[in-house]
C-alpha cells in the first residue's frame, strides 16, 4: 500500500460521510454508506494483505471496528439527537469489545458502566430537558442541516489521512514485531511478579495455598525478604524463600499466581500515578461543584448586600475625613 492509495481511500470515505450527512434522500445515504464502508473495508483489507502470510486474521477486531465506525458515522449524521445518543451506545459497546480483545477487561466493563451507564444517561436527560416541545413534531432545523460540512470534512479527513499514514505506512506502520518495539517477555513477567511482591497479603495467601497442598509443611511460616524483596525471578520461574520452623525453603510460584490485569491497573494507578489520581479526584470534585454552581439560578448581589447577607455591617462612605483638614 502506498500513501496515495490511502489518501484516495480517505477521500472516498470523506465523500461517503458527506453523502450520509445530506438529509434529503435515502438513496444518497445508501450510496454514502457503501462508499464509506467500502473505503474502510478496502483499507482494512490492504492492511491485512500486508501481513505475513501465516499470520492470523483478526476477525473480531475487524468486526468490532466496523461496528464502532458505523455507529460513529451514524451518530454524527443522525438528525435526531436521541438516536444519535443511542448510536453512541453502539460505539461504546463495540469499543468495549475491542478493549476485551486487547486484554483490558476491567476497562471494557468500566467503559460500559461509566459511559453507557452514567454519562450517556446524563446526556439523554439533558437532551430531553432541553429539547423544546415542538421537536416532537419533527427534528429541529439545526439538527437536520450540518454546518459547513465540507470544511469540517476536509479538516477531519486530512487529519485521518495523516494519522492513518503514520499508523500504517510510515516506516512500515506500527509494528510490534519490529525489534525493540515490545519488551522481552521475561522482563514483562518480572515486572508482574514484582507487583505481587508489593502485595504482601496476597503473597502470603498464595504461599499458604501452595503450602496447603504440601502436607509436610507446618502451617506457620514467614516469608524471607532480601533487600526488601521476597520474590526472585530467574527469567523463567518466580520463587519465594519461605522459612518454616527455622528451615528455609524455596517455593516456586505457579503462573496462576501472577497478578491479574485489573490488579496490574490498580497497582499502576496507586504506585505509579498517585498524584495524577489525586488530581483526577479533585477534578471530579470541582466538576461537581461547578455543575452545582452552574445549574443554580443566578442572582447578582452587590457588595453591601452580600455583607448584609453575611451578617456584616455594610461599607460606609465616610472615609475622606481623616487627612482632609488642617491646612493654613
Amino acid at each position, binding site marked *: 500500500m502506498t500513501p496515495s492509495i490511502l489518501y484516495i481511500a480517505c477521500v472516498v470515505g470523506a465523500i461517503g460521510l458527506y453523502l450520509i450527512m445530506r438529509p434529503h434522500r435515502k438513496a444518497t445515504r445508501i450510496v454514502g454508506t457503501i462508499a464509506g464502508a467500502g473505503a474502510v473495508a478496502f483499507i482494512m483489507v490492504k492492511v491485512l494483505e500486508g501481513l505475513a502470510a501465516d499470520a492470523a486474521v483478526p476477525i473480531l477486531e475487524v468486526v468490532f471496528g466496523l461496528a464502532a465506525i458505523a455507529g460513529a458515522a451514524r451518530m454524527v449524521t443522525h438528525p435526531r439527537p436521541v438516536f444519535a445518543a443511542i448510536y453512541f451506545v453502539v460505539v461504546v459497546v463495540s469499543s468495549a469489545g475491542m478493549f476485551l480483545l486487547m486484554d483490558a477487561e476491567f476497562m471494557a466493563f468500566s467503559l460500559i458502566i461509566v459511559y453507557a451507564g452514567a454519562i450517556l444517561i446524563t446526556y439523554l436527560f439533558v437532551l430531553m430537558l432541553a429539547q423544546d416541545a415542538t421537536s416532537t413534531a419533527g427534528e429541529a432545523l439545526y439538527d437536520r442541516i450540518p454546518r459547513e460540512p465540507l470544511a469540517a470534512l476536509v479538516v477531519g479527513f486530512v487529519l485521518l489521512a495523516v494519522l492513518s499514514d503514520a499508523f500504517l505506512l510510515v516506516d512500515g506502520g506500527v509494528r510490534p514485531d519490529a525489534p525493540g518495539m515490545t519488551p522481552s517477555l521475561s522482563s514483562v513477567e518480572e515486572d508482574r511478579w514484582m507487583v505481587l511482591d508489593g502485595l504482601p497479603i496476597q503473597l502470603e495467601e498464595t504461599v499458604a495455598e501452595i503450602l496447603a497442598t504440601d502436607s509436610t509443611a507446618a502451617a506457620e511460616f514467614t516469608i524471607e525478604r532480601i533487600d526488601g524483596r521476597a520474590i526472585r525471578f530467574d527469567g523463567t520461574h518466580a520463587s519465594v524463600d519461605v522459612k518454616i520452623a527455622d528451615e528455609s525453603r524455596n517455593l516456586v510460584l505457579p503462573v496462576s499466581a501472577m497478578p491479574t490485569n485489573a490488579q496490574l491497573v490498580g497497582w499502576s494507578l496507586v504506585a505509579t500515578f498517585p498524584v495524577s489520581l489525586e488530581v483526577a479526584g479533585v477534578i471530579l470534585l470541582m466538576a461537581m461543584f461547578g455543575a452545582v454552581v452552574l445549574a443554580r439560578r443566578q442572582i447578582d448581589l452587590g457588595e453591601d448586600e452580600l455583607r448584609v447577607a453575611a451578617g456584616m455591617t455594610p461599607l460606609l462612605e465616610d472615609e*475622606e475625613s481623616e*487627612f*482632609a483638614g488642617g491646612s*493654613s
Partner: protein
Amino acid sequence: MQLWILLLIPLVTCIGVGFGGERNARAIALGGSLVTLAWAAVLAMQFPHWQAEQWAYWPAPEDNAFPVLPGLGIALELGVDSVSLLLVLLNVILMPCCVLGSWVAIKERRREFYIWLLVLSTCVMGVFVARDVISFYTFFEASLVPGFFMLAIYGGPDRREASFKFFIYTFVGSLFMLLGLAYVAWQHAQQTGDWSFAISDLTAFAPTLSAGEQGWILLALMAGLAVKVPLFPLHTWLPLAHNQAPTAGSVNFAAVILKLGLYGLYVFILPMVPEAVVTWAPTIAVLAVIGIVYAALICWVQTDVKKLIAYSSVSHMGFAVLGLIALNPLGLQGSVFYMLSHGFATGGLFLCIGMMYERYHTKDLREVGGLAFKMPVWSFFFIVLVFASVGLPGLNGFVSEFLCLIGTFTAVPDAKTGYPGVLGPWFAAIAATGMILGAMYLLYMTGKLCFGPLREPADHHESEELPKDLSLREIAALAPIALICLIFGVMPWPILHAVEPVAEEVLKPYPALVESHFEQMDATAKVSLLSDTTLEGSR
C-alpha cells in the same frame, strides 16, 4: 538578600492591601511604601561604594544569584551600583508621595489601585537592581502591566486609547530590545561555549563583536529604549499616557518609567556596543536635539497643563540623552543627575497638577488660573518645582542641565579632557536654546495658572472634602520633593562623587575608540579639520 527584601516589601504590602479592606487600603499602602523607603535608606547607608575609587556592584551579584535554569545559565542576580541605588531611592522616595497624592483622588477600587501602584514600584526597582538580562527584561516588561491598568481603569476620558498605546508601543519596542539582548547572549554561548545572561558577562563579551553586528544590536536596543526615554520621534505615547493617567500614574511615568529607558541606555548600550555608539552618537544626538526644540515649541502652544508637562519631559529627556552620549564623565554624570532631578521636579509638578485637578476638575489653562491668591501654598510649591524644571541654579535642574550641556559642548574630537567625543559645540548650542524655550513654556504655564486674575471653571463649587488650599497631607506629599530639589541643587557633589567611578568604568573603552573612529574618517575631512584648528591656534 537585602535586595530581595527590598523587592518583596511592596509585594507583601499588596497582600495587606488586598485583605485590609477598601477603607484601609491607602493607609496600608502608605505604610508599606514608608517601610520600603526605610529599608532602602538602610541599604543606602550600608552601600559601601558611595565614595569608592573603583566601580563595583554591591552585593556581588554572584553571591546573590538564584539559579533558575543552570544549564542555560539563567540565574536571577541582583546587585546595585551607585546609579541604580540612586534610582531606587528616587522611586521609593516618590512612592509615599504618590500614595498621599492619590489619597482622596481615587475613590473607587482603591485596593486595586494601590496594589497596582505597589507592584509598579516593585517592577521598576526590579529593573534597577537586576544584574542579569532575564530579570531585567522581565521587570522591564512587567512594569507595563501595572502601568496599563492604572491608566486603563483610573485614567481620564481617553484612557482606553492611552493605555493601549502605552502598552503596545512600549511593548513592541522592548521586543526588539529582547531580540538584541538574546542575540548577544546567543553569540556569547556560541563563542565561549557557556550560556550566560549576567549583564556583566554580556557587557564584557559584546564589545568583541564586529562593528556591523554592534550596529544592529544598538538599533535593536534603541528600538526598545528610545521609546521609553522617549526620543523623538518615538515620543507620542507619552503625552497621551501622562495626560490621561491618574496623578500617581503620571508621577510614576514621568519620574520612574522614563528613567528605565535612560537606565537601559546606560547599562546596556554604552558598555555593550561602544563602536556602534561612536558611529551612531551624532544621529542619536540629532534626534535628541530635535526633540528638545520640537517638544519645547509644542509645549508652548498647549492648553492642557498635563500635556504641557508631558511634552516638557520629552524636551528634558533630550538633554539627558545628549549627556549620556557625550561620552565624557561630565555628560554622563550630568545625565545620571538629570534622571534624578527630572524625576523629582516633574514628578512634583504632576502631583501639583493633580491637586489642582482634584479641586477644579479641569486641566485646561483657559479655564482655570490665577490661583496664587486662592492657593498660595500650592503656588509656592508649584513655582519652586517650575523653577527646578526651568533649571534655575541652586535647584536641582540646573546642575544636571549644565553638566549635560557642557559635556556635549566639550565632546569634541580633540578634547583635552581625555575623553574625545563625536558631538560638539553646535549640538550644545542648539540644545541650549531649549533653556530659553523651557523658560518660555514653563513661565507661560505658571503665568496662566498661578498669576493673573482668578479664573475658575463656571460650574466650579468648593469641594467639601478638600480645603481651599493644600491640606497637611498634600503638603506632606510635596514638601519632601521640593526640599530634595533644593538640596540637590545646593549639594550635588555627594551624588556626583558617587557616580564618578561608574562614569569612568563605563567610559573606559571610549577614548581609544573615538580616536580610531576619527582616524578612519574621510581623509580630506580630517585634513580640513586639522587646518582649521591650526589656523585658530596660530592666530
